[in-house]
């Protein structure tokens, strides 16, 4: 499928005190058919990176290449071409779907962006998409407020998959969900990787969830990537001190918590 290569990318945001560098010289690569996890804490620049790749925020310097071609999102025509290749699912299940459109309308709209489909074909496609993300096709007539958070996030996933992109960017898709619902969405994502051979950039702050679906993991801090390694290697032998801090901070039911570091005791 699609290869993503980001080279030396810098993204600025306008802030109250001048420009803020959200992404600072980031390079990364998502090989075809694999998933790269991107972890980091809030404000580390993960979402800015995702939004720059899909053309929602402007790139300051650096290059973003999809299948060897530099992406552009200046005109509507550029954006359409980009949309065929890469799609994004964002964090907030509350605003992920247009509150005035039924599931059928939302998915139908996405399915007909690049193909002309007549009514029966469109309905068939909507059913296919809902089944793909593990939802009951009977939900097609519902409005977003009649769905649970997990269901809404799956519909958002189905909308992104409707155009059959080569690369999917998932930005904190399970952060707002309960653990048992998160487990189901993570399973769906693994299933999609297997069935569609998608390339994926999976962004999150929950290290176990990101590691569960990723082949390799990049750790981001203050706009830079501090470590990238295959998932098993990262978990077994983290190289960067920050990666080790992150790993140690993950609560776990099966391992005892680390003893408090002596220097953190109040004087």
């Amino acid at each position: 499928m699609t290869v993503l290569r980001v080279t030396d990318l810098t993204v600025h945001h306008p802030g109250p005190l001048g420009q803020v560098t959200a992404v600072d010289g980031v390079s990364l690569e998502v090989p075809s058919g694999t998933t790269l996890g991107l972890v980091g804490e809030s404000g580390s620049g993960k979402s800015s990176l995702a939004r720059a790749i899909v053309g929602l925020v402007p790139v300051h310097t650096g290059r973003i290449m999809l299948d060897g071609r530099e992406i552009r999102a200046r005109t509507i025509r550029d954006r359409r071409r980009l949309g065929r290749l890469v799609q994004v699912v964002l964090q907030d299940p509350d605003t992920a779907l247009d509150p005035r459109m039924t599931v059928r309308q939302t998915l139908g709209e996405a399915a007909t962006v690049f193909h002309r489909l007549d009514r029966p074909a469109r309905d068939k496609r909507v059913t296919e998409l809902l089944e793909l993300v593990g939802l009951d096709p009977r939900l097609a007539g519902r409005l977003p407020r009649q769905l649970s958070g997990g269901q809404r996030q799956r519909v958002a996933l189905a909308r992104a998959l409707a155009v059959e992109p080569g690369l999917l960017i998932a930005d904190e898709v399970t952060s707002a969900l309960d653990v048992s619902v998160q487990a189901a969405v993570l399973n769906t994502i693994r299933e999609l990787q297997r069935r569609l051979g998608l390339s994926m950039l999976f962004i999150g702050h929950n290290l176990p969830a990101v590691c569960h679906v990723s082949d390799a993991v990049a750790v981001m801090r203050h706009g830079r990537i501090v470590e990238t390694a295959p998932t098993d290697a990262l978990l077994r032998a983290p190289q960067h001190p920050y990666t080790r801090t992150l790993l140690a901070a993950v609560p776990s039911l099966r391992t005892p918590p680390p003893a408090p570091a002596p220097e953190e005791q109040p004087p």
Partner: protein
Amino acid sequence: MSLPPGLRRTPMAWAAAVMLASLVVLALVGPLVWGASADRPDASAVLQGPSVGHPFGTDNLGRDVLARVLTATRPSLLLALAAVLLGAGAGILLGASTAVLGRRARRLTAGLINLLLAFPALLVAMFLAVVFGAGAAGAMLALAAAGVPGFARLTQTLAAGVAGTDHLAAARVLGLGRLRLLGRHVLPNIAEPLLLSTTTAAGTSLVALSGLSFLGLGVQPPGYDWGQLLNQGLDRVYAEPLPALAPGLAILYAALAFQLLGEVLAGNAARRGPAPRTPAPTPAPWGSPRPKAGGGPAEEGLVLQVEDLHVELPTPDGPIRPVHGVSLALRPGEIVGLVGESGSGKSLTALAIADLLPYGARVSRRTLRLLGADLAALAPKERDRHLATGLAMIFQNPASALNPALRVATQLTEAVRAHRGASRAQATAEAAEALRRVALPPAVLRSRPHQLSGGQRQRVMIASGLMVRPGLIIADEPTTALDVTVQREITRLLSEIRRDTSAAILFISHDVALVGEFCESILVMYAGTIVETLPADRLADGARHPYTRALVASVPDLTADRDRPLPTIDGAPPDPLTPAPGCPFEPRCPRRRGHCADHTPPLEDLAADHRVACWYPVPVAADPETVAAS
């Protein structure tokens, strides 16, 4: 537009509908019925006062004023509506375009709107009316143009709300065209408030247009509208008030009709707003019937003793009972985790203990003792003081729990100065000590909340709780909004506070792994009841309730096999609006049997510190994979 049934019930809605209908009828039939008499000059009846034939007198050509006012309904309304529709249309297009244009074009448009807003609307209208030349069309266009900036700004603000949503970003990434984004995703979501302001603007526009005609800039003779009739009548208002009054009344009536309609529509929109809350018949937060003072037997040495707590909340679809029959007890220095998924009632339990439930909620319980005192037996004032000094609450979002306008020092010292009457200097010294305990420098006292990071704010919240030296700290998802490394610091801090002050901590969270690691004993909540209580070290492998098992199994672990799917729980929690008999987990339970659906299992002791509400608890040695079918 289909009006919901509630719209027709209020007297104001009736009045608006009747007034509007009368205007429409007048505009339609007025010129047909009275048109002839309005235009017929009568040299024998020039400038007459009121009479039987002419109730509002006649004008300088002997034409009947009443007939002229009624006939003028059509031109007056049509001109006002045309002006407002043109102005609103142009303004909405201009404002909404900011949501879908590229960056440079968006900035230009926003700048243009700002520039236009700098000119006062009525002056612009008069200036343009002069430029366009006196006449009906000129006045109408002038008013329309003057209305554009206001609508543009309103639309721009509303559209910015939609532009920030994830669904618009997703639609953009799909590559949809600008017109489609505008027509399908932006405008429908802001249509309601725009409709409201257009309605209200129609009233204003009517008055303004009449004003222009009155000044001689609008409709020109021989044509006439209400403003022009007012102008003609005003010349002799001291001799004959009624010919001037009639068009004035007409203007007032029509403007009022539009304003009323706007009010009714706005009220209706607010009712369907995001948080509909019907007031309860009796707002009695401390339970009705009021339980007898004393409740259950007091147990010695308990910080918090809650027995059989019920919470009832009114919703538009009927009352729900999100908490029913919760009992819990905390000893000094104990950390108890209350874990459950969203909607399980864990936060409402905490709010009920702290008497912080939303308006309209009803609480009943057999026993509620804080530090030995029965809260139901206390007078309201004493109860507030007891809660304020015995209990500290820490909330999920430190950004909104602190008042952004006040310095940290003010917020920390507020409670002790109010409840213990401490002096300012003494309170400040205590605040500095509390900050030291949460590992913050005293300099933080002088800062305002926005100058602190999320972790620092949560520390300030904890310090604020420590100021009153509470016996009980309720922490409701205190780390959910924080990063994992900061989360670790906060839980460590809470442990230290517990050790140093022997306060009991009720730690509420949806994060099973965190609760299991940080707390000593765990209460698991599901659908408003506690389904299992157990020591934390038994959570990973020794849980007996099928729900606890499934919940624990669904947490991704760094050591888990990534090629196997995570165990999940099929189905969804029960709908609180339609409570069913039997075990609440029964529809999703892999171990259910016949009578689970009919009989609710009681919370029964399995061991000294392990209780479970299940007819068929999972055997201890069972493999979690077999209970949590995916």
